[in-house]
């Protein structure tokens, strides 16, 4: 099933993102049968979730975005997208998340028709987003020095219907370069030694100029890379970081201190727990002042309600530094 293009109805061999809850999104390949764990026998494709079992073939004929009922609850069958894929893909390496990916794509000025070079391929998180942006007339050349990872990525791209838009290379680009000249609009590097690749990147970019991005977790890598970029004629060398801050939206009720309310005053004694005339009187007065509520104890509490967005107790503090640069056109 293509991670490019849109469908309304689920068919066999599609990939469906099964949405159980916020942190549980599972990519499911829609097929009647699947290989068992040992890989030696075909079995009926049944997926176990915490709300019950899902017979995967039941998804066929259903529509994306519709509810899927399970024995103890329900889920949603969502249409795949590079963002959902990044959230749910099997990690083979540390991956790039949507926040950095979004900034990379805009800063590299990518759009349909662009040719992009990426190294390393890793788990293919960024690759899927890049392909989505440059397809159908653009192309992604992606390199990784790890043979298995390069192959796994290639298989995944094919399964996702993307093989026309991407070429995978198993290569050490630091030693060998990209093997492409005057080809790319943009180069993306996520390597331990990106400065070694800068001259190769320069050659592979188009003579009419292009953009480059290098992602590095460590500042030392950034320093070395920036120096190499400047020495090789890159301009507008700029290093930034971009972090996501998420807010949890909640309805909050806070008890309130009322300076006017004296719990020791006789008329405020509710120990017999019967609404008295004076209680009702107070309630009415309270309408003008503060809202009151009977608590378990004998003291009535005022409270204030509001909707708020609280940041998470723990947020990503660092992913990597993003360094961008422009290679000006060759004018002669």
């Amino acid at each position, binding site marked *: 099933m293509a991670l490019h293009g*849109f469908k309304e109805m689920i068919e066999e061999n599609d990939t469906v993102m099964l949405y159980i809850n916020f942190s549980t999104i599972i990519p499911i390949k829609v097929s009647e049968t699947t290989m068992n764990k040992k890989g030696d026998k075909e079995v009926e494709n049944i997926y176990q979730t915490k709300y019950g079992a899902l017979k995967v073939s039941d998804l066929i004929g259903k529509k994306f975005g*519709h509810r899927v009922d399970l024995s103890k609850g329900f889920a949603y069958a969502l249409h795949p997208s590079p963002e959902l894929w990044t959230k749910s893909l099997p990690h083979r390496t540390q991956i790039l998340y949507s926040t950095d990916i979004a900034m990379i794509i805009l800063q590299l000025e990518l759009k349909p028709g662009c040719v992009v070079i990426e190294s390393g391929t890793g788990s293919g998180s960024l690759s899927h987003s890049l392909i989505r942006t440059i397809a*159908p007339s653009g192309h992604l050349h992606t390199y990784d020095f790890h043979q298995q990872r390069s192959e796994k990525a290639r298989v995944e791209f094919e399964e996702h219907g993307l093989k026309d838009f991407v070429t995978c290379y198993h290569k050490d680009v630091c030693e060998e370069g990209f093997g492409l000249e005057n080809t790319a609009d943009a180069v993306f590097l996520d390597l331990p030694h990106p400065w070694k690749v800068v001259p190769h990147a320069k050659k592979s970019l188009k003579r009419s100029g292009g953009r480059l991005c290098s992602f590095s977790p460590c500042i030392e890598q950034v320093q070395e890379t920036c120096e190499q970029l400047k020495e090789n004629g890159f301009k507008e060398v700029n290093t930034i*970081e971009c972090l996501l801050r998420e807010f949890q939206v909640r309805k909050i009720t806070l008890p309130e201190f009322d300076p006017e309310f004296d719990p020791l005053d006789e008329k405020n004694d509710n120990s017999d727990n019967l609404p008295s005339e004076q209680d009702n009187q107070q309630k009415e007065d309270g309408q003008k002042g503060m809202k009151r509520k009977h608590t378990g104890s004998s003291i009535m509490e005022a409270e204030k309600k509001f909707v708020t*967005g609280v940041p998470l107790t723990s947020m990503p503090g660092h992913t990597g530094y993003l360094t961008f640069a422009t290679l*000006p056109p060759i004018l002669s």
Partner: protein
Amino acid sequence: MSENGAERMEAVEDCDIIQEGATVVLQKFNYMRTHVLNPKKTLLLGRDTVSMSGVVGKKYGTTFEMVSDPKNKKQFQLVEANEVIDFESLFLTGEGGQDNRDLEDTENSQKLSREQVEEMRDSGVSGKVIMEKLIENSETYQSKTKFSQAKFLKKKAKKYHHYIIFRKPTVRLLIDILYKMDPMKIMNLRIDSLSQILNMVNVQSGGRYMVYETGAQGIVVASLLERLGDAGELVHVYQTGQPQTACLNSMGLHKSPLLKTLNISHLRSLEHGKNIIFNHPKSESKDAENGAEETSDQQCDKTSEKDTDAEPEKKRIKLENGTKEPESENSKESEENDQKKPVRMNLRERSVEAFNSIKAESLDGLVIVCKQHPGNIITYLAKYIKPSRPFVIYSPYKEPLMDTYMQLKEARMAVMVMLTETWLRSHQVLPRRTHPTVLMSGGGGYLLTGIFVQN
């Protein structure tokens, strides 16, 4: 019209040669602005008047040197530069001092007076020579540390850097220009927030999207159009008068065949089966009374860019260089009225065209970037978006998005609803002088994202 549109788009994308009438990004050192190239006109840059002849026909990326007219020192011609003088490589050659323990901050370290320097400038002395003289006449330059010297040179380069480069406009450059000029003109939509919008709505070539945009100069519409390439559809829903198109014009996208416009009041009428074109004669005069809106702007950086959602304002005619002609002779006004009539009619026809399209088939994504509270807007427009498609709402404030979050949750219209902001910081990276930049943006707006579902 669509054929012309496709041709025009191709011309902007493929051609490396600067054409007459093209909107370019003009860059002088770190300063950038958009400009429509007219070889017969001049451009005011700071205190200098620069002639634009000699630019058309050259390649984008060519460096031009500003050469002053011997008769009038403030007038400049642009001449292709053979070499660009880099102050650092020329003047950062000495040893430099160890540290600044003996350096006193007096105003007398520079022996040349301001008048002397200005005299040199006005008499056409080159930036290189001025720099030499400044260093010669500085008591402290040689004893400064090399870092300090570099900082000094960078500061002076800004002033005496007389090179101009013309670049093709891209959304990245455009939003940088707009944000630096006045972030509130685009509701504080910082570049990282814009980048998140584009990714979260999964914009891709061939997709069909709806953007409700007011108050951001059309930058969101322009960005999505850039990402659609040559296939797909973008329905720009707007509120009153005319849709804001300043950024579309800067990118050469205002005639894109992929763009449809839809006035939300027209949408309401059309949903009730009314014929909005048949009604036009009566409401036509009413619209004209309510005040003229400007015709499409050519430049994004006009400081008096008009807010088309404002209450009726008096008529204004804007010229390219931003000056306003006084409200005037009757002949001019009636001429303007005639010009306005076709624009109104066109907008109504375009609304009908857009409505037919979204009614025939729902869309693949929704973006809302507007000055109104988004709560009612998303519930109103959601019916035109297919299930399992994303929406993104931008607001400079958190509260409207929190309200909308609650609305969506209660109506169970969406899953994965998230309220986020992005934190952006830049770094100065120099050997042994690397640190985050001293000033950073305090905020770039908030986003509410999610995926529509069907229960």
